[in-house]
């Protein structure tokens, strides 16, 4: 989903950035701010660089007051356990993409069955499979780095907003809409949200079977098949590599080895994972929930057509952050032998417990918002629950940013 609002994420980033100043990672940068000092001397001690820690803090005070005190974010720069990265890849990334690929294939098959014999039951099956694929996809948020963005899979499968004008034009035309034709369409004319638009309709998510035109049915088949192909290709980019490139699982799990130019240090790999966790939390807490709540705009909710933004998208993004932290994949019941959580617990068990407790609180707070969010978002009765959920998710993020990152 394209982001519409990222203020607090930026906010956090400023904090992360601000810490460079005072304390860059000793392992990668040598001498603890010595470089900064040398430059400063050149400039006649104007103080521009010496004072950057304070300036970063200044940035942190801005925004909307809900950000963490950003000057506390400090990477230790000492993380050296590559096994955590490989265990995460084996036990979270690959099984999650595997599951997603399987679910998109099931969705495509359910669409085919619905098209062959339209019925309420067949449409319900399509909706169920769509929601399952959607849930899996949003659980990949923590590892959205690598091929998902670079090779265009994210855009092809999850572009937002939907280009309703173009889709309506496609449906009104006689043009081919099979898988090959869909593969040539623009990102905003295909993917999960295009499927959502057609199967749920624009009002109330209860489009009757009788309302589906032959063109819609044909287009749905093309969209479903294209989605499944994209999902399989994304999985393959991690497991086998594409166009002669190394599998991305190999790239990530060989962080710190000579010749790995993408992650030349294990620490860089750990930054990728931690920033991924934090981004997932930002996505659910601020981008998707808080921004829409502040605007009181239900149409800006990601899965507005299906009215399932809370149970599919938000819940899964939070789950994705937890999966990244504890190295587990509940859907496939696999568990990393060693995780970021274990690493943190090995240094400071209290911090690890605090993170885990904050995640549990956030999950409970999110689950307490009445469904569907597409109604409760603008219901004064639900205001307290929504605010509490935003707060709880921010607490997870701030705990990780302030207490975990300094151990990494």
């Amino acid at each position, binding site marked *: 989903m*394209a*982001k*519409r*609002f*990222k*203020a607090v994420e930026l*906010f956090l*980033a*400023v904090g*992360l*950035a601000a810490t*460079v*100043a005072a304390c*860059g*990672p000793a392992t*990668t*940068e*040598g*001498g603890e701010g010595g*470089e900064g000092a*040398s*430059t400063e001397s*050149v*400039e006649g001690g104007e103080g*521009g*660089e010496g004072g*950057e820690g304070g300036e*970063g803090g*200044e*940035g942190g*005070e*801005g*925004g909307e007051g809900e950000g963490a005190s950003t000057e506390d974010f400090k*990477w230790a720069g*000492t*993380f050296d356990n590559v096994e955590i990265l490989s265990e995460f890849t084996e036990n979270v990334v690959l099984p999650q993409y595997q599951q997603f690929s399987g679910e998109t294939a099931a969705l495509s098959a359910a669409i085919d069955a619905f098209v062959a014999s339209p019925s309420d039951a067949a449409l319900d099956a399509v909706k169920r499979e769509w929601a399952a694929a959607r849930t899996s996809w949003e659980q990949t948020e923590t590892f959205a*780095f*690598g091929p998902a*963005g*670079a090779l265009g899979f994210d855009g092809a499968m999850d572009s937002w*907003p939907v*280009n*309703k*004008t*173009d889709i309506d*034009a496609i449906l009104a*035309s006689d043009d081919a809409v099979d898988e090959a034709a869909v593969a040539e369409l*623009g*990102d*905003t004319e295909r993917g999960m949200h295009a499927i959502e638009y057609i199967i749920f309709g624009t009002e109330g998510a209860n489009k009757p079977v009788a309302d589906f035109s032959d063109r819609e049915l044909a287009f749905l088949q093309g969209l479903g098949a294209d989605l499944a192909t994209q999902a399989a290709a994304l999985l393959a980019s991690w497991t086998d590599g594409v*166009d002669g*490139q190394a599998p991305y699982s190999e790239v990530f799990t060989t962080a710190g080895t000579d010749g790995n130019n993408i*992650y*030349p*240090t294990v620490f*860089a790999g750990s*930054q*990728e994972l931690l*920033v991924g966790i934090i981004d997932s939390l930002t996505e659910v807490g601020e981008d998707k929930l808080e921004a829409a709540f502040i605007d009181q705009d239900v149409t800006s909710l990601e899965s507005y057509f299906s009215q399932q933004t809370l149970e599919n998208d938000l819940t899964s993004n939070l789950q994705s952050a937890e999966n990244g932290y504890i190295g587990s994949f509940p859907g496939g019941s696999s568990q990393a032998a060693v995780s970021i959580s274990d690493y943190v617990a*090995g240094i400071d068990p209290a911090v690890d417990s605090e993170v885990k407790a904050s995640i549990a609180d956030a999950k409970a707070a999110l689950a307490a918002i009445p469904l569907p969010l597409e109604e409760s978002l603008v219901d004064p009765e639900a205001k307290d629950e929504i605010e509490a959920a935003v707060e709880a998710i921010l607490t997870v993020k701030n705990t990780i940013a302030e207490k975990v990152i300094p151990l990494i």
Partner: protein
Amino acid sequence: MTATPRRLPKALIYLVMFAIAGITAILLTQLLDGDRANLRNAVSEAPRAGGVTTVNNRSSKAFGLPATGLTPEEMDLHAAGDVAFDAVFVTSPAPINPGLGPEFNNASCGACHIGNGRGLPELGNALLRVSLPIGEGVVVDPHEGVAPVPGIGIQLRDNAVYSETPDAEVELNWVEETVTYGDGTSKTLRKPEFTIKQADAAKPIPANMETSMRVPPVVFGTGLLEVIPNETLEALADPKDANGDGISGRINHVWNPETKATDVGRFGLKANSPNLRHQTAAAYAHDMGISNPLFPEADGSMDIGDQLLKENTFYSQSLGVPARNQLDNPKVQKGEKLFADANCAACHISTLKTGPSEVKALADQTIHAYTDMLIHDMGEGLADGRPDFEADGQEWRTSPLWGVGLAQTVLPYSGYLHDGRARTLEEAILWHGGEAEQSKEQFVAMAPADRAAMLKFLNSL
């Protein structure tokens, strides 16, 4: 569980710092005197590539963090700009982000500048600039710097909203050739070739049309480059190679539509844009078909207003520059010296100083961008044969190298150089010619371990 890094005694650190400071001070003084030749051995020790704006992140998000040192008001503007940069435009009418096209290359800034970095060397991310050769009845449009193609303009939009027709159909193919090193090993290079087919009856494709493929350059750090004083660039320029070092950087003088006057060109791969506001507005108009205050529709209307343009421009200006890493790695240190010894640093100048700026974090910063912002003859191998304002068909602006080591972290599978033809930094070096021919030949003659060290240095940036 965690390894504690070995540390030098503090006294020694301070001594080294003092020495570095002294050397840097001397070099900086020479830079400000405009003496390019004396900079060739400049070795930058500072990891804080973007001065106070530097950010400490070597992940795929490294190009997307706001600069440190922004005020709360600036952070708000940056945040709004971040939304604008990622906003995906759709066909009108639409409740959210209408106005796409009708012809376009892509639908959002972020779809091409992936993670605020490069795009892939594929159509959709990459695009073709086009023009006509100057000749009888064909003259340069003084505002565009080239002679536009009738009916098409200066850029081929190979995409269109569903009910419209693209400017043309473009097919991209790669042609390979082989280069041999001094030690006998060889390397296969590739360059792009295009088949352009007419798609619209109203837009014939001239047989003599000039084309130039471009991949999107990185976005971060541009706010700092924007406030390097003109005087610095003029001092660095040596158009007639008066100092006889074989390198003759020039300023590209371009049209500024807002001041309605000629200005120093800074942005774009041939430095054909005077500032980031213009660069941003031109990208909206040409890449996405989004009309705006600098590029309105014929009837004066526009898809986005000045506030959005301002926010998006500020977003680019206020992104942080990633800190260098692996500075204590001996190979990196050796590579940096080799980079200077091969005279690469004559154009990829390590250290510049910014001038005044309304944004405090951008003002008076010592930065390590590894560029002189000037256009140079890069030889026939890289030539696009498409002059742009004062840049000829063999000239390109020295690309900043800061963050170049993160290019494939931010965007795996991406390429280097203006059209992304180089799949690795090694290939990018091998394509250098013209004023960089001698430096390239030195690299080719190096022992394999030295070549590896130089690449390791580039990857530390």
